[in-house]
């Protein structure tokens, strides 16, 4: 699904079987099995095999399966795509995307493997990780490079290195890059996903970082620890009044449709396109945390 909920995208090392098995119980929206940074060079092949096996045998429940593959200019990228696509993950996340051509190339390769294995074209989605100054400046073109692309994610660790800065707790140095990535993704109709927060012991710093990301327009956050997933879901949880208002708007729309009326008002205020899409977004978030009828009751 192109625009499914991706509030929390949790990284799990692709070479750690017990963590892969446990990941779904923390109910992240997406599980990212990592073949890149988490896996040392001499374990790339073994981790790839393990991830393929995991995709084929494990039940990831309602979690989206994403594989972070190695960047295009590494000797592993092609093998990653060839091995993984037949196992049908929901998505591949291409590390170190700098040019639209990286995405075009990955799109073509995935398409070839899909064809070889009788998998419908476009089944495996793509996500571009923007991790350098050059990638940020090309973000707009990257975001439009492929129909397969559903999200841009930001990787701040490599990015700060590329601008020769250091990462700070309040993330001041990331502001422009974050804003550009949000705009590039939103303009292309895909989702911007914010960078990881590496200090897993700093829950409050992480919460503030998620709040900033949400305020800036990010659709979700990359997580490196299960505990962060719950915090992300809390921050993205809509308020009770937001949910009730969204429900009223959607009910008014249904009522108007039933009566064949074109003009809709709720509590004396006109309801137009942006208000409807915001209401839909609020209800999607509300449903995920069990705030609507028929929603998830797990508390996540």
């Amino acid at each position, binding site marked *: 699904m192109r625009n499914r909920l991706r509030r929390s995208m949790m990284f799990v090392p692709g070479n750690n079987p*017990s963590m892969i*098995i*446990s990941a779904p*119980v*923390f109910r992240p929206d997406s599980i990212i099995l990592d073949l890149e940074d988490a896996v040392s060079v001499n374990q790339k092949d073994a981790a790839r095999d393990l991830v393929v096996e995991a995709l084929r045998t*494990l*039940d990831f429940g309602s979690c989206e399966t994403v594989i972070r593959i190695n960047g295009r200019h590494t000797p592993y990228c092609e093998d990653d795509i060839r091995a993984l696509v037949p196992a049908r993950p929901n998505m591949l996340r291409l590390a170190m995307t700098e040019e639209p051509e990286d995405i075009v190339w990955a799109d073509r390769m995935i398409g070839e493997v899909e064809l070889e294995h009788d998998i419908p074209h476009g089944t495996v989605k793509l996500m571009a990780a923007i991790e350098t100054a050059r990638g940020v400046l090309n973000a707009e073109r990257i975001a439009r490079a492929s129909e397969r692309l559903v999200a841009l994610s930001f990787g701040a660790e490599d990015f700060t290195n590329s601008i020769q800065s250091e990462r700070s707790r309040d993330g001041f140095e990331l502001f422009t890059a974050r804003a550009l990535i949000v705009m590039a993704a939103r303009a292309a109709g895909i989702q911007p996903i914010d960078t990881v927060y590496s200090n897993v012991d700093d829950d409050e710093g992480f919460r503030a970082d998620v709040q900033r990301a949400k305020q800036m327009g990010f659709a979700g956050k990359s997580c490196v*620890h*299960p*505990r962060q997933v719950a915090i992300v879901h809390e921050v993205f949880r809509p308020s009770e009044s937001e949910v009730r208002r969204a429900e009223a708007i959607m009910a008014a729309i249904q009522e108007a449709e039933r009566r064949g009326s074109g003009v809709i008002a709720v509590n004396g205020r006109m309801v137009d396109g942006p208000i409807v899409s915001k209401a839909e977004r609020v209800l999607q978030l509300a449903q995920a945390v*069990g705030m609507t009828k028929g929603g998830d*009751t797990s*508390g996540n």
Partner: protein
Amino acid sequence: MAINAVGREVPTYVEGLGEFRPYAGVFATPPKGRRFGPTIRRTGGKKLLPSLRAAIEASGLKDGMTISFHHHFRNGDLLVNRVVNEIAAMGIKDLTLAASSLQSIHKEIIPHIRSGVITAITTSGLRGELAEVLSREVLLKAPVMIRSHGGRVRAIESGELKIDVAFIAAPNADEYGNLNGINGPTACGSLGYAFADAQYAECVVAVTDTLVPYPAIPISIPQTQVDYVVVVDKVGDPQGIMSGVTRLTRDPMELLIAEKACRVIEASGLFREGFSFQVGAGGSSLAVARFLRERMAATGVRGRFATGGITGYIVGMLKDGLIDAILDTQCFDLVAVESLRDDPRHVEMSASFYANPHTKTCTSDILDIMMLGATEIDLDFNVNVMTGSDGIMMGASGGHPDTAAGAKLRLVTAPLIRGRFPIVVDRVHTVVTPGECIDALVTQYGVAVNPRNPELKARLKDAGIDTVSIEELQERAERLTGKPEELALGDEIVALIEYRDGTLIDTVRRVI
């Protein structure tokens, strides 16, 4: 042999130990007889003796007798090894070692088992190399008798377990044998497990490293019960209890399980003003206290008391006014030790007061909420906390069967898979606690309610908590791990698992 009420074949007679009744149900075997009384003695003269050897000589210890110890220092215990070494050097042999529990530090007694100094053992638990040796080899005259904390004191009071000489490690003592565990450099806190030994042993030797002028106050164990006092350099290492406050787990899986367990508690109807509870010191069990505390703060519901082994975390709840009292048989960290010393609302209790099924009332029988662990749980909800997936003894009966028997809500928390093995099995290798007294299993993959408790299931449903059957949990685990292979076992019984009422609930066979 007979088949007991949990379907286990148990002996009705064991050479060296006598006759046994098979387990018949949680409260199916009522007590009978009179309480045991030790010989009336007047020690007279000087109680303070110059050495351990002098005390052993004065105690009249002879071949074939029973010696006892408490386990308040846990893995920091120094006394068992020291006394057994001394006894061996004196040439005394064929003794029964009746410790309230044994830890991995006690591997030092293995040579004394091989040489016939120790020929029988009764304990709540066995760990480490000692446990492994006793699981693989038949070295004793009779199987190890595993008793729960309540079961041990019951056996002492009924005279089934007659102690000839009790050696009591006392962090604080005076020359007439008044003892406490809360003062002195090696303070271990509550001496609850030693009370029965002091009261019922024929001879009581207190061993201290901190002798104070008469009277040693407060008095936990009184001079009226103590025969001799010996001073040594150090009775135990409090670091073996644990320094500082017990840290809450940060393991996300344990936290997840604890959070689910807390939701079950809240939905059970027992989370109400004045409730009581017990949690262990480890992993998800203690983490349940954290979530309970959060819910208490959020809802304004206050508890009345907490029991059992006590940690600094529970002390924090007392200090914050979330509970009114702590009943403490054993301190799990030094914060608990300090609290027992300084706070009159934190009360030392004996093992009998805590868990003896054959007293007029024990605390475990009036507890509301009990959090339990498991190394395995089976489709009948029988719980194993004694043997590992390899059949080797590695745990303790402890207060598990005692608290499970009496508490109103008995929850087992455990990860569904531990070290590649599923936690839910067809039949547990060793039944320690019968499934009859387990209400639910809480794992990361869901909550399985025991069909014996439909009311709990209905309450969880009303609260919107989904439940699964224990069979579904087993299937889920086995999809990941496969079905574990049967263990290769010998015919010899290496341990008997006594239920708290003195009946036999299971046996442990030798691992080949």
